[in-house]
């Protein structure tokens, strides 16, 4: 259990984004490093804990968020212990956990990845199959990323959450900007930007408190939102009334949820975990911080599945 463990997800371009680096200790405990710049304060020096597993939270250096393979192996290096005598390292194992898709062998093993203090890294790829349908809302990218099989209602709720609280370009923005002849509100330019901001504020009321909301858009008219029960979950009805009197409607089917609290903690991003009900509906089971969620997954052997590519053979 001494090999470092880094959790990552591939973005649309196939580049990894580091979600967390974990330093595993001999006693089985882990220190979670939300990303490589959040790490290396000795655990004993910082009593703050992430989640219920008492995972030490580490210091922040203010470096930009890590993306790409260099950033990933920088995270590995920070989660690793260097050899007791520099220059004596050989092949050093490292576990990479990818949420969702896994990288290609060429990406990972095409070039040697040197390790600090000597030697090279021998990456082993594990992939995570979430126990429940889950969507991760990336605070940096402002987008919802599916980690498991999501229904349309679940995906709608995840995207709406990302749009409402994290500024993602989601379904409301797309609808407000789409031409009228294609069912959109037909807004453009500054009017569109103002309308999106106002719509987000209104949606925070609608989703957070489960009631109707209205947003005045000035010259661009007015936006009304309402949440209703329907078979399979909820329906979000939005109506845009233009200054000229025209009305455009949008209906989004959403998975069931209990009023979504506005996330406040500065973490790597919340994960929406959905569960399937016997009735066939799906419901938002919980919103968790990404870091405890990953630690939970990585601490549960059943949650990790060895990939077909175990990486190069390690030195005995």
């Amino acid at each position, binding site marked *: 259990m001494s090999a470092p463990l880094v959790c990552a997800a591939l973005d649309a371009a196939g580049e990894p984004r580091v979600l967390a680096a974990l330093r595993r200790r001999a006693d089985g405990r882990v220190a979670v490093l939300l990303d*490589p*710049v*959040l*790490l*290396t*304060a000795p655990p004993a020096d910082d009593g703050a804990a992430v989640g219920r597993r008492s995972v030490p939270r*580490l*210091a*922040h*250096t203010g*470096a930009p968020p890590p993306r790409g393979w*260099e950033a990933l*192996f*920088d995270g*590995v*290096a*920070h989660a*690793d*212990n*260097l*050899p*007791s*005598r*520099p*220059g004596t390292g050989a092949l050093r194992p490292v576990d990479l956990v990818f949420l969702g898709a896994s990288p290609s062998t060429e990406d990972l093993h095409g*070039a040697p*990845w*040197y*390790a*600090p*203090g*000597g030697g090279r*890294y021998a990456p082993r790829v594990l992939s995570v199959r979430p126990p429940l349908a889950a969507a991760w809302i990336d605070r940096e990218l402002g987008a919802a990323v599916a980690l498991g099989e999501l229904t349309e209602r679940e995906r709608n709720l995840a995207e709406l959450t990302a749009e409402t609280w994290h500024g993602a370009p989601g379904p409301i923005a797309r609808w407000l900007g789409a031409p009228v002849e294609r069912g959109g509100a037909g807004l453009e330019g500054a009017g569109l930007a103002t309308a999106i901001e106002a719509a987000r504020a209104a949606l925070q009321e609608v989703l957070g408190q489960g009631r109707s909301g209205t947003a005045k858009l000035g010259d661009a008219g007015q936006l009304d939102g309402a949440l209703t029960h329907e078979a399979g979950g909820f329906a979000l009805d939005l109506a845009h009334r233009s200054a000229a009197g025209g009305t455009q409607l949008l209906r989004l089917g959403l998975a069931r949820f209990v009023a979504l609290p506005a996330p406040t903690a500065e973490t790597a991003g919340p994960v929406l975990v959905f569960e399937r009900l016997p009735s066939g509906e799906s419901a938002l089971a919980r919103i968790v911080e990404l870091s405890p969620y990953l630690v939970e997954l990585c601490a549960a052997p059943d949650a990790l599945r060895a990939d077909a590519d175990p990486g190069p053979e390690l030195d005995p």
Partner: protein
Amino acid sequence: MTLRIVFAHGGLEAPARADGPGIEARAWLRAAVHSEHPEREARVSPREPPRLADAMATWHCVALPGELVALFDRHPERSIDVALPGAVREELERRAPRTWASLFGRTRLLERDGGYCLRRTEQGLVLQWRPAGDAPPVEHTSALLQLGDQLARGALAAAPGAGQAALALVAKVLEARWLARRLAPELFFDARRGGYRLRGKGSAAVWERGPDGAPGLFVELEDGTTAPLDESPGAELPLGVVRAGLHWLLGAPPVGQALYLDSAGTPPREAPHTDPTEASSPIAAPTRSGN
């Protein structure tokens, strides 16, 4: 009969404010009387005339030099040996000069316990093994510790053009590789080439292999020049001594200061009441417990 006085490692204390300017540093010390008859050997309290039967006390805090001089005066018939660890000797010379003069003038001085001594001088770092007893010191070399001394001076011999960012980078890399065994958050590790940079601070880098692929540590300065850094610890030096010495040097101690280390790399220090020999035998001879 010989009165033997053993000073505790690192046992000097600053004088209390109430003591006034005439009182020098206080010291933990242990006194023992060595007779020709081992069964009569015992410790004596330096505060009182020695009564061999009941002198069971071990360590005392003695105000210098008064009580020590009084002790000498009370036992004019005895020859007095004083055993001093190198670090205490150093401190005594500096902080209690009158006591030092008393010791030097009236006693036979023994330096107990061999140890390593690192001293920063104007000319550079002096690294010595000081054997127990009167044997002369043995000079040692360590490229890594010289590197630490250069960092404390703010200039690398191999790369005179290194700026503050490059020096800070080299210090962080040495700390990660030799001391912490972890990378500090401000270090970025380039796994493609095997090297380190400081996040957001200049373009200097430290590589773990040279331009031709040869292993070793190389610093690349902002202007693109590359210079090798010799970080060999020194063949005959215990790694613990090298690590402790590097830790001390990276803290940039002033020129003239010295660090004393035992072979395990720990500063010699005996806690007054945790001497392991105390528990088993209340009259253990300091010559045995000290060596």
